[in-house]
């Protein structure tokens, strides 16, 4: 997994590439939490490059959602590949996490 982050105003934009599982969940969590702590309130996850996710990865995303929500921020996802979307939906995560076709749309929503 590779993770690229960018802070735009009070929004953290994170682009995730590769596989999000038990072996990469900690890097995902730590990178996002560290950048959020730098002052971002909201989180946009661009998942265009995500090639694999399982329940450990979904749990790490849910964990970020809870953290952002607790602090009164919004979290959304953008550009979710179809197989990943299917798992978001099966896991129930899709019910709480809004998804947008494009990153720009997601940023605009916040």
């Amino acid at each position, binding site marked *: 997994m590779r993770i690229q982050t960018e802070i735009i105003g009070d929004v953290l934009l994170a682009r995730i590439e590769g596989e999000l*599982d*038990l*072996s990469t969940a900690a890097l995902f969590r730590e990178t996002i939490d560290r950048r959020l702590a730098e002052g971002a309130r909201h989180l946009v996850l661009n998942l265009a490059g995500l090639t*694999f996710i399982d*329940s450990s990865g979904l*749990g790490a995303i849910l964990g970020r959602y809870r953290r952002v929500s607790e602090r009164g921020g919004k979290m959304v996802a953008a550009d979710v590949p179809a197989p990943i979307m299917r*798992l978001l939906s099966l896991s129930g995560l899709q019910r709480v996490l809004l998804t947008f076709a494009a990153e720009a749309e997601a940023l605009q929503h916040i």
Partner: protein
Amino acid sequence: MDAERIIVEFPSRPENLALARVIATAFATRLDFTVAETEEISVAVSEAVSNAIIHGYREGPGIVRMELAVVDGVLEILVIDHGCGIPDVDRARQPAYTTSEDRMGLGFVFMESFMDELEVDSAPGKGTPIVMRKRPEREGGERAATGQSLPDR
């Protein structure tokens, strides 16, 4: 060992998850699975092996064994740990049931949804062997593997 059985043993470490998935999906090309079915196999294996690492061996040392076979046109995947075992398997298989605070209790749900059969034969002290089976549906869909020959022109 039967003619088609492949055995893999690896240390119980998250770094080995990706390799377990690669091996299972490469093996699965022997049957006519679609790309979507192959992704399902990959998730199911990831869940089974993650459970062995997190729950079976409690993130400590141990060996995870994976066996792959084609039996009567059905893909059969065994994932075995010799870890702590599950006291109540029926309960563990309930959706959203988990003994870890930060997990979602979705592992068995995904294994059941993505494979045709799931058998979990665990007991405390005995470790946890699980068997998953999946038959290719062949109802259209992009092929995951390419065939062997093209017609002559």
